[in-house]
């Protein structure tokens, strides 16, 4: 693995860190959820109404309790993932309510789309997890959406996945369902198997829904991403240093709460901070400033000794065009090369998280493959890799195409594109397909040939029984 580079100096880290601690201690954070307020009171923090003023030393002490890395367990142990350290985990986009089709059409995402994206992630060599809320399946009732989504991940792939954090009850459902899959709540407490996303409401707030989710996961010892999305210029200051200080304060506050509830609960420092487009007020994510926030966050996560979430194939484009490609490559590359461990939104996102696109998914999958290859760097560990002997054998003026060494090594040393076209002009021009057109053919082909890994029928039955029982209760 390549060494990850820092973008902030030690002095800059110090200034932002201290700015964040001052925000937490002097300005405070609003937690709307009463059980969370009780936790802070019990830990001796100053509370006024729903605003909590966090003592700097207390924050440092609590954040230290979070582990530097943890293993997330899949139903197929081959897909267990280590989150933290040098590792990087890629997964599909999260939470988009719309699907943009190749012909430029926009439509509400459905459960059928959900299953498709989970399958595409299951089939991908480059995506390590199937993610969570890969689209918002708007054709499924709110009350049971979390169950249907979890079921899709369980049945369509044997990779790790994310669960709902939408309120205490929904979170608990997903945790219990995962326990059924893995053999009990005790088992997953020992071997965490479900991770969720908890977002602050910037500036300086956490709402009931997310705090309920946070408490359920913390109680069950399941990991969570604690993330903040500062829209610099609207929900946060227009300066990068100010916005970063704000984000950092919010994430530290969330991590502190998790460690108060259950010390040692695995958490991931999450960053999705980006810009406000000052002409429309929209979020804008496909930009160098977003890449800087993410890289700085990776460095802060190392500073605090926890894994980092950030980045992805992020774009503001509305279709799979050059903008979609260059923005996504920049944001995924920056995240990956500066040490982010957990990359939600790696594949599929268009228009600042608003939409998923099948074609974009395939383009991002290709980008992910390229970046993963880049991260592997040079292998200088053996004489074989140094290739002196074969250079000697061929000598001046020869070629390497017919050497055993070449035949043996090119497959592992070279990234093999699945989507990019490297043909001559004449070969290409027979069909003249552009990237979007090739991506469309590709995802259709992948879906048609994908067979989901089998799930033990006994467990499947238990999983389905749990979902049926809860659905009945929730739809009552």
């Amino acid at each position, binding site marked *: 693995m390549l060494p990850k580079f820092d973008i902030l100096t030690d002095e800059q880290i110090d200034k932002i860190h201290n700015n964040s601690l001052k925000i937490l201690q002097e300005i405070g954070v609003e937690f709307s959820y009463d059980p969370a307020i009780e936790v802070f009171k019990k830990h001796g923090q100053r509370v006024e109404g729903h605003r909590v003023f966090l003592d700097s030393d207390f924050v440092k002490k609590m954040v230290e309790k979070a582990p530097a890395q943890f293993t997330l367990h899949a139903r197929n142990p081959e897909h267990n993932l280590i989150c933290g350290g040098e590792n990087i985990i890629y997964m599909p986009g999260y939470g988009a309510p719309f699907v943009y089709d190749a012909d430029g059409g926009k439509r509400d995402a459905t459960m059928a789309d959900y299953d498709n994206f989970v399958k595409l992630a299951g089939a991908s060599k480059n995506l390590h997890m199937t993610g969570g809320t890969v689209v918002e399946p708007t054709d499924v009732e709110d009350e049971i959406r979390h169950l249907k989504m979890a079921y899709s991940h369980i049945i369509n792939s044997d990779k790790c996945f994310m669960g709902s954090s939408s309120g205490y009850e929904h979170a608990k459902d997903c945790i219990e369902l995962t326990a059924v899959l893995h053999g009990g709540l005790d088992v997953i407490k020992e071997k965490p198997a479900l991770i969720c996303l908890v977002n602050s409401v910037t500036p300086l707030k956490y709402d009931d829904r997310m705090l309920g989710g946070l408490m359920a996961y913390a109680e069950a010892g399941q990991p969570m991403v604690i993330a903040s999305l500062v829209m610099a210029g609207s929900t946060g200051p227009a300066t990068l240093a100010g916005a970063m200080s704000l984000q950092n304060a919010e994430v530290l506050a969330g991590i502190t709460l998790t460690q108060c509830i259950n010390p040692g609960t695995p958490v991931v420092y999450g960053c999705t901070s980006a810009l406000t487009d000052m*002409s429309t007020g929209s979020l804008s994510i496909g930009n160098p400033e977003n890449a800087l926030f993410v890289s700085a966050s990776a460095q802060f996560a190392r500073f605090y000794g926890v894994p980092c979430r950030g980045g992805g194939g992020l774009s503001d484009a509305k279709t799979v065009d050059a903008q979609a490609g260059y923005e996504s490559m920049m944001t995924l590359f920056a995240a990956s090369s500066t040490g982010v461990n957990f990359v939600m939104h790696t594949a599929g996102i268009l228009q600042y998280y608003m939409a998923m696109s099948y074609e974009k998914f395939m383009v991002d999958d290709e980008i992910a493959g390229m970046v993963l290859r880049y991260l592997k760097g040079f292998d200088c560990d053996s004489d074989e890799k140094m290739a002196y002997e074969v250079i000697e054998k061929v000598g001046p003026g020869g070629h390497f195409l017919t050497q055993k060494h070449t035949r043996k090594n090119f497959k592992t040393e070279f990234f093999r594109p699945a989507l990019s076209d490297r043909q001559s002009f004449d070969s290409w021009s027979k069909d003249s397909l552009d990237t979007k057109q090739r991506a469309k053919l590709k995802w259709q082909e992948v879906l048609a040939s994908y067979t989901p890994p089998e799930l033990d029928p006994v467990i499947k039955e238990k999983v389905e029984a749990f979902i049926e029982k809860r659905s009945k209760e929730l739809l009552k």
Partner: protein
Amino acid sequence: MNPIFEEIKDAIVDGDEDLAIELAEKVVEEKIDPVQAVQLGFIKGIEEVGAAWTNGEAFLPDVMMAADAMKAGMDVLEAVLAAGEGEGTYEDKGKIVLGTVEGDIHDIGKNIVGALLTSAGFKVYDIGIDQKAEDFVAKADEVGAKIIAASSLLTTTMKSQKVLVEYLDDQNLRDTYKVIIGGGPTSKKWGEDIGADGWAETADEAVALCKQLLE
């Protein structure tokens, strides 16, 4: 022309809320014609900002701060305007009640819409976040608004927009108000599905929609 009108205009263009209040207070104290102060000061200023916005020369902070300054100054003049002081009358382009629906605490998009509507000459009553259907309607009734504009950023709170339309139906008030909706996860189709009178994706489109609905 009284030089204070030009000063008011500049205060609006600069988005200087404190100065706008100070000048409005001076208008009241020195019994300067308040209608002229509105037309030659406040409205001139906001029109200038609105034009700069349309040309792409002004950005959100410019427009939103101008709208805030305008609202603050106009609030000071409200009593004297209501008392009918000054030559002629001042008419806004229409009254709009604006808020974020129940269960949702996001307000930035709503605030942007409010500012652009204000800069386009509408009188906006922003009732804030997490507002029940009855709160929207009560305010609309109180101020005589023609349009109710409801924002939602979450897929889980969009249904509150539907509740608002249903509430109007139940109260036999559906024809009294135009209901428009917006927010990240909403769509034209969602607007049609719930029977809203309009949907806008952006703040600029919301302004165009209100103009069209009040024609």
